């Protein structure tokens, strides 16, 4: 037994050595062939990949990411470029005289949207294309863009209330109900902000969000003496949880023939809907059984 093991180990080390030899060989060939502009080409591709990653992470569409990568590379004179962008990953490869000199992929997890950053990167890519910004300056600008913060909490909270209240009214509620939904939206945002600190699971977050708004709506309808309708308040209040950017980006990706990424984003959006509805539905079922009343 031990003999076999030793032999296997020996074979493995031999293989490793061979691989290392091949790699070293390839490396030396590469360097002799493009010693001069290799570094710069690498920097350009790094810049393009990073810009693409930031765009994709913050809710840019697939075609925008591809366009940005190509624009940057073309402007700095990189040829033989090939890109493949998915909703959660970017692949970039560059050829030089038939040899691959750069091939990298970045994983970009599906996450929240920050449209301000998308707008900034877009502006930067335009400026690069018109030749106003050099390579190093572009890196500095990109670092600055990465540091852009979200809007302050009070503004987000207010916006969440505005969204909930505004859409509650146009779904056919009264102004008073819409006012109550404004406060549900405000509390929902504070609740979600607290929850996000300790939990990152999308399933749990959205289900608990659904539970929270339903409980608040039931409380509002029961303990306030105005006779508010529960279902109107809930349909308004779920709006801040609805993944709008994912939905709109899914449509745009499908319109641009990026069916794969579009489908992934659409499924992501629909699943969030399902989680919210499960949370809300669970509370409503319990409530209905306890109170015996009819709802919706």
């Amino acid at each position, binding site marked *: 037994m031990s003999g076999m093991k030793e032999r296997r180990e020996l074979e493995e080390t031999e293989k490793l050595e061979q691989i290392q030899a091949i790699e070293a060989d390839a490396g030396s060939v590469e360097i002799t062939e493009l010693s001069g502009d290799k570094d710069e080409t690498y920097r350009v591709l790094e810049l393009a990949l990073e810009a693409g990653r930031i765009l994709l992470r913050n809710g*840019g569409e697939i*075609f925008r990411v*591809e*366009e940005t*990568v*190509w*624009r940057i590379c073309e402007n700095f004179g990189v040829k033989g470029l*090939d*890109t493949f962008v998915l909703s959660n990953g970017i692949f970039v490869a560059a050829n030089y005289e038939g040899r691959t000199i750069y091939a990298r992929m970045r994983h970009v997890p599906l996450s929240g949207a*920050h*449209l*301000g950053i*998308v*707008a900034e990167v877009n*502006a930067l890519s335009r400026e690069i*294309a018109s030749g106003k910004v050099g390579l190093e300056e572009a890196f500095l600008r990109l670092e600055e863009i990465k540091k852009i913060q979200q*809007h302050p909490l009070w503004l*987000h909270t*207010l*916006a*969440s*209330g*505005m*969204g*909930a*209240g*505004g*859409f509650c*009214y*146009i*779904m056919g509620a009264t*102004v008073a109900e*819409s006012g109550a939904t404004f406060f549900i939206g405000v509390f929902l945002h504070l609740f979600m902000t607290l929850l996000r600190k300790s939990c990152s699971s999308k399933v749990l977050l959205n289900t608990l969000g659904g539970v929270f708004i339903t409980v608040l709506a039931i409380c509002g309808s029961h303990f306030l003496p105005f006779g508010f309708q529960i*279902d109107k308040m*809930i*349909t308004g209040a*779920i*709006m*801040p949880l*609805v993944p*709008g*950017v994912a*939905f*709109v980006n899914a*449509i*745009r990706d*499908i*319109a*641009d023939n990026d069916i794969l990424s579009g489908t992934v984003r659409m499924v992501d959006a*629909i699943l969030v*809907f399902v989680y*919210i*509805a*499960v949370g*809300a*539905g*669970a509370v*409503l*079922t319990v409530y209905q059984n306890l109170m015996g009343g009819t709802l*919706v």
Partner: protein
Amino acid sequence: MTLLLNMLFAGTGALGFTILYNAKPETYVCAWLTGAIGWMFYYIPAQYIDAGAASFLSAAAVAFLSRTFAARKKCPMTIFLIAGIFPIVPGAGVYYTMYYLVTDQLRAAAMKGITSMKVAFAIVLGIVVILSIPKKWFFVSNWRRKDVEKEYIAPSRK
């Protein structure tokens, strides 16, 4: 009066989501307008025609407005598109579908579900129709002089 209130609330709701997604303050006025006008294109036709057709009209109007504003403000059209699409997204429909499913009212669930799907498809179609218009048509300069800068299409897309 109801019409005005509807416009006001739709715009305010749309603006809320623009802020929630961290768009820049310069875009707020345009986002408000997109939300308000887009909802009018749903609210008024929906009294005469079916919800799917009204959604199509509204989505097309929103997409058109978004592209115009995006060309003016030189920023991604997604910002305005989200503001305008949010009021007509069948969030309530999907919610009712799920609610009926959870409470085992399958017939009602199927009806609500198919209506929501219809609206969703109408929105997709409305946006796609406007998206297929060439980009340069949305720049005012295109209609004034002949030598406009060419639209950039990444070579991988050609």
